[in-house]
């Protein structure tokens, strides 16, 4: 059992939680994630470690379906059944001059520790944060504290530039030759277009892949992704990979195989 030490609501659908988990905190690094199970019958879902100290680990999650909503019912002083990690390979901090991070939606949670790690190495960092509308943007102050520039895009124009992250990225890549690396974290479809854009502008690009995971430890094979025709397990070989040769269409298809079942499960939550 793992104690929820602190909980905050960042935006109406996005929450922040600090959980006491010394075994996870001990070796946690940027890029690592945890597998969380809310109660004894719960499913296991992966969430990125956003921050940690000696004993506690911070997660940020968006209420999407059954499990993330079940998580949001939990309050300070409650416990979680499983909080296992740190899992995955730590992010590979590359030798670069000027990195631009691109986050879609709650992708800004996992992106933050990575950009921080670049910043700590003395590398210049900028960020493009995109969301449906203002209510889905989080961590703006945290990004402003480490980035030279933070560019915001919203689909409805409620904050920042109206449009998509790729629109903003295009301008940055065309006008700022010093940018030599892109990191994209967000929905697979967004990462796909960011990778295309980075490639067409001759910049290297890293992505964080988010296939469906069950164990998170390399046992089930559900999380497999194709990169340059080879199969990798995102939970042990990733989740971060060089983006250039990722088969995003396959990833998108694999993510949606259980859509109907997830939806049915979610509907039942509403009945409960």
């Amino acid at each position, binding site marked *: 059992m793992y104690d929820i030490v602190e909980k905050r609501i960042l935006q109406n659908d996005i929450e922040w939680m600090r959980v006491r988990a010394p075994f996870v905190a001990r070796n946690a690094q940027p890029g690592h994630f945890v597998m969380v199970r809310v109660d004894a019958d719960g499913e296991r879902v992966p969430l990125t470690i956003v921050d940690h100290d000696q004993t506690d680990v911070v997660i940020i999650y968006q209420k999407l379906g059954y499990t993330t909503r079940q998580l949001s019912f939990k309050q300070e002083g409650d416990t979680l059944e499983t909080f296992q990690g*740190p899992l995955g390979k730590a992010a590979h901090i590359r030798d670069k001059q000027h990195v631009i991070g691109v986050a879609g939606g709650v992708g800004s949670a996992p992106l933050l520790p990575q950009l921080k790690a670049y910043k700590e190495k003395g590398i210049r960092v900028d960020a493009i944060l995109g969301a449906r509308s203002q209510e889905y943007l989080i961590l703006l102050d945290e990004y402003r504290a480490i980035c030279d520039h933070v560019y915001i895009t919203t689909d409805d124009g409620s904050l920042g530039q109206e449009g998509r992250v790729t629109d903003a990225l295009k301008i940055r890549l065309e006008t700022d030759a010093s940018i030599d690396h892109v990191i994209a974290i967000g929905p697979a479809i967004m990462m796909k277009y960011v990778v295309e854009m980075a490639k067409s502008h001759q910049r290297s690009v890293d992505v964080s892949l988010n296939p469906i995971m*069950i164990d998170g430890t390399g046992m*089930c094979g559900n999380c497999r992704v194709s990169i340059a025709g080879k199969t990798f397990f995102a939970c042990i070989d990733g989740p971060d990979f060089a983006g250039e040769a990722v088969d995003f269409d396959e990833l998108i298809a694999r993510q949606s195989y259980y859509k109907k079942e997830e939806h049915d499960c979610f509907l039942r939550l509403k009945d409960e």
Partner: protein
Amino acid sequence: MNKIPRTPMRNQDAIERRNHFLEVALGYSLEEARAEAARCIQCKNPRCVVACPVRVKIPEFIKLLLEDALDEAFETIYEDNILPSICGRVCPQESQCEGACILNIKSESVAIGALERFVGDYGMDKNLADKPVKENNGIKVAVVGSGPAGLANAASMRRKGYDVTIFEALHEYGGVLSYGIPDFRLPKDIVKNEIDNLKKMGVTFVRDVVVGKSITIEQLFEDGYQSVFIGSGAGLPSALGVAGENLNGVYYANEFLTRVNLMKARNEPLSKTPMKLGDTIAVVGGGNVAMDAARTAKRLGAKDVFILYRRDRKSLPARLDEIHHAEDEGIDLRLLTNPVELIGENHVVKQVRCEKMKLGEPDSSGRQRPLPTGEFVTFDIDNIIIAIGQKPNPIIKDNTLGLQTQPWGGIITDEFQMTSLPGVFAGGDVVTGAATVILAMGAGKDAAHHMDEYLKTTTR
């Protein structure tokens, strides 16, 4: 010589049992057990014992059973095998103890596994394993993994007085016994009971801890553990290596069985971890894992389940009982059939193309090598489950400096089961590759002996 036929074990009805996960084989009654025990001719040099990986004193326990000394029969088995209820159910007896039984020559072997199961279950009901153990000597040892290797090692080390902690990566203990082997072969309360026995003995269990990630082997020593046993098993699924393997609807047996067993997708159609399964299911492989996957698919409602295996029937590595049970349940064996391509539509698998095989010369395993014929067949399918083997998980290897491993990932050990790191021992599937419960258990137990010797020379 004894020509009385073997006492059959009662099974659940083959039609009825397709609808649930209750245990298929029902076990012996006391009368049946006595009748079967009476068939053993009490050999002076029992061949059965030599063929048991842990040398259970078979004629002795059978004799005690006949004399109605059931407590003593249990103790006799328990000295060599701490998991009799489990091994009685899942050992490949036909290639071990029973395969060597002298009665096999003229008649049928003694049903040693069934008798062991009977005595094991008797002991479990009467709580005979719950015995006072030595006081904790304060010397901390760590066990990585709670499968049969880890459990056996922990039990033996605890009995020798050590302060034992098991670290398990998953949220349930038992390894393959919990997440792999289905309830209809090994009911989970038996596994739970064995784990509770270890808890009562004073073994500490910690779950959700992935050694190598949550804590490294080096950090275990920093934290005061004086010796470590790695029993992390072979949990990484092997790939078929054919086109279309990453299509939706293609499962590795591990994913399939994990969803159903560990995540309980079997309990309700709307489980939080769902299982999506169509009507027509192909299973690739011929071992226990393939049989379990096929029989599980049937129980989840699949109409047509067939097994694709590239060799012939006599090469099937699964336990004989399970092959029979699978066939009784309507699972079709398509032998000498090797999948070469998975064909999909809109990223979902629809067909499996297979090459017909023929038998050639015996290969290194002694079985006739399957050879391609150039003739192909294609089957329509809704799902395909790949069960062609497992390798050790790379997490420990990748995160432990100086730990020597085989090219295929197995941990290398010396004659005392010590790895290339002093004080770090290993055993079970992580050393041998995917094998059997009893071999893993034996390895865990033997390693305890070597760890004790090692600790006696280093800690005092």
